[in-house]
């Protein structure tokens, strides 16, 4: 594709989206339908604006998927994995195993060749992360049981792609020679099937020892554009690298995302790429529409439509069964089953990959692609049917409050600024096992704090987007501890406008700032000193549900210990004075604080007595 035609294609894609989406939204339909319809209209079978070469369009599609999967990967923290591991394995494995075996059986008995039937079944086992995540976000049910169940299944599928990609060459039994796979050819033959594992291992090492230090280096320059550039560079670079070793670029981007999910740049990267996200989704859905090959459909419409219907029914039935086994309520179960019954974008990747391995012939490739695309188009319609006709019957108590269904009952806290003031608050919270998302824009401090086990992310909260990617939409408390009152004020106003549910605690420099905050309608204002930082933390503890008197006791105890520590640190000749306190003292302090002052353990008492002298 030449540069010119890339710009041209982008123009057409965006044009289609801009015109179709508002139109469709006016009719009360999901934006996804608008994108897909737009794609069909501009596609080779509509206005022929995208050119006749469907490879061009697929390239764009794959790039959309790559970026999307990077963002999806970024949202997946290893810790989150662990919390819902039973659901991921149970629901995910159940869904995939049953769907694949039933579909395989059906195709096999319909007279397909065994390997083709198996490949098709594997491809159709996937659901669309893009559509489902978008729908969950639009309906604002990401944190409910429905969201969690859907997410678990999708996650399992995302992971299952890895063994499936490894399995397909074994099924094909061909060592295909492709110029882009020179690196792979260098490996001894017995190692080649393990190339995926090697690729991933290489990625993890690269991530830890090259990418993150590199981002740190870039962030020190203080130029945000450079961060955007380097994150894009990173995603595209990883994809190309994966291509070079013969793996899926989308998978590479996904893993790159997961890899960076634990780094301090997670929220910053998210907010950098966030503006692109909608755009990329649009491109992706439009290209799904544009990829539907109507010639192939018209050639054998019966085959295409019966297969699509069979796939949808099998997936729906399996999902209903799995959901029932995992005790989802009926209306939740319907929503999950309808939502995930389509075939997803990973199928595009798998189908193309299988075709490259000569497992599928070009005709079947086109047919499977069409089935995938059609099933994706059907999803929004199925969801509307569910909402209009099925939900009123399954959901007995109309509009149950959403909070009751959320599985994450813990309060979510965001702290902005982690200098002397913010860290005092954060330490006191941490001692009580309350973790907060912390944003700070000093990359050296972020680095230091992370090495001490704090969950701090690099990011300038006064920039639009970063609060959102730090999770402000679903958070309960926002704690503003920046040194600069103007910045605190700015963020406060932004947050009140965009996230009105947030309860805001703010640090004020002096009485004049306090006036401003009061006039802004803020109740929780803390004029700064050690005392006020502690007071703020005590109030936050109360807001998270701790008993008032217990929080008070902890605050007092914290002050005593903190003062003692400071005295001790001041007396000692420190080798290097770090940002606020030495790490060992932090740990010591945390240990001391972990015991309530209500403790009768004499050794605890002695230890901090010792610090006081």
């Amino acid at each position: 594709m030449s540069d010119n035609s890339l710009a041209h294609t982008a123009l057409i894609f965006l044009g289609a989206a801009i015109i179709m989406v508002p139109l469709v939204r006016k009719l009360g339909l999901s934006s996804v339908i608008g994108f897909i319809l737009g794609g069909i209209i501009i596609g080779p079978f509509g206005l022929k604006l995208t050119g006749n070469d469907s490879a061009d369009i697929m390239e764009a599609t794959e790039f959309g998927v790559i970026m999307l999967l990077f963002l999806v990967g970024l949202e997946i923290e290893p810790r989150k994995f662990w919390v819902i591991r039973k659901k991921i394995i149970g629901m995910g494995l159940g869904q995939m195993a049953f769907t694949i075996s039933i579909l395989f059986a059906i195709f096999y008995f319909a007279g397909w060749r065994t390997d083709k039937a198996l490949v098709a079944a594997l491809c159709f086992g996937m659901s669309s992360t893009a559509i489902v995540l978008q729908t969950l976000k639009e309906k604002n049910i990401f944190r409910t049981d429905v969201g969690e169940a859907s997410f678990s299944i999708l996650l399992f599928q995302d992971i299952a792609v890895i063994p499936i990609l490894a399995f397909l060459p074994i099924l094909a039994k061909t060592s295909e020679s492709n110029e882009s796979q020179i690196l792979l050819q260098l490996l001894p033959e017995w190692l080649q099937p393990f190339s995926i594992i090697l690729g991933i291992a290489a990625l993890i090492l690269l991530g830890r020892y090259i990418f993150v230090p590199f981002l740190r280096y870039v962030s020190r320059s203080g130029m945000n554009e450079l961060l955007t550039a380097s994150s894009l560079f990173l995603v595209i670079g990883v994809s190309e690298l994966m291509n070079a070793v013969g793996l899926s670029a989308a998978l590479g981007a996904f893993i790159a995302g997961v890899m960076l999910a634990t780094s301090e740049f997670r929220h910053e990267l998210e907010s950098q790429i966030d503006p692109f996200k909608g755009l990329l989704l649009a491109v992706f859905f439009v290209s799904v529409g544009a990829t539907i090959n109507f010639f192939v459909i018209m050639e054998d419409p019966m085959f295409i439509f019966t297969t699509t219907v069979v796939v949808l029914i099998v997936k729906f039935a399996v999902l209903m069964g799995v959901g029932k086994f995992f005790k989802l309520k009926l209306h939740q179960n319907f929503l999950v089953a309808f939502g995930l019954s389509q075939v997803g974008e990973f199928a595009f990747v798998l189908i193309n990959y299988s075709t490259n391995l000569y497992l599928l012939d070009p005709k079947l490739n086109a047919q499977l692609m069409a089935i995938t695309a059609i099933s994706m188009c059907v999803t929004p319609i199925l969801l509307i049917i569910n909402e209009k006709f099925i939900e009123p019957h399954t959901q007995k108590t109309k509009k149950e409050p959403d909070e009751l269904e959320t599985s994450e009952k813990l309060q979510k806290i965001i702290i902005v600024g982690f200098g002397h003031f913010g860290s005092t608050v954060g330490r006191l919270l941490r001692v009580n096992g309350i973790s907060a998302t912390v944003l700070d824009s000093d990359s050296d401090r972020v680095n230091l704090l992370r090495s001490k086990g704090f969950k701090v992310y690099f990011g300038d909260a006064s920039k639009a987007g970063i609060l959102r990617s730090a999770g402000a939409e679903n958070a309960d408390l926002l704690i503003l501890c920046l040194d600069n009152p103007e910045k605190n004020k700015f963020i406060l106003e932004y947050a009140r406008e965009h996230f009105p549910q947030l309860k805001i605690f703010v640090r004020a420099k002096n009485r004049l700032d306090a006036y401003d905050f009061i006039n802004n309608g803020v109740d929780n204002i803390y004029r700064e000193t050690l005392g006020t930082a502690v007071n703020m933390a005590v109030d936050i503890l109360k807001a998270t549900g701790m008993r008032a008197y217990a929080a008070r006791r902890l605050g007092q105890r914290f002050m005593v210990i903190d003062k003692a520590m400071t005295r001790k640190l001041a007396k000692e000749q420190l080798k290097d004075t770090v940002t606020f306190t030495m790490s060992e003292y932090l740990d010591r302090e945390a240990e001391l604080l972990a015991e309530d002052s209500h403790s009768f353990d004499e050794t605890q008492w002695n230890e901090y007595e010792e610090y006081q002298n």
Partner: protein
Amino acid sequence: MKKTLAIFAHPYFEYSTTNVELIKAYESSEQLIFKDLYEEYPDFHISTFRERKRIREYERLVFHFPLIWFGLPPLLRLWIDEVFDMSWKAESNHPLMNKDAIIIVTIGAKKENYQKEGLYKTTIEELMKPLSLSLSVTGIEVKEIIAIYDSDDLDENQLKETTERIKKTLKKYE
């Protein structure tokens, strides 16, 4: 039911298992307001005048607390010190006029320890004397003292029974 103010004081309520159950007795009625002193005044700064104004609105007070070193929890003791006024004795229309009271106290030890012949040679009624006397001197009639012994070792059924007993007592003196 009479309009009732339940005054609850427990310095270490977060470690309590018994009282968490027992205070469920106060859940249902609109006639009853439950007030947790340690939650309301964690820094011991009692708003005396607000308290005096508030207790006027009720016909009955319930004092519910654990026995601590044979006496009241410090914040409840302080609350009484700050809210009650000795000069009320002589006044005819003071905040506590024409009310009655129920005392509910949870005790860690066994009942036999609190007998004339027992370990402590003192009864709960005697230990409650400073409170009940303060109440009766200011014109409040103490209807009943519910002592819940062995309170750290009550099983689920006993907890339920005790909760029911509190509910019944609340209804009894209309």
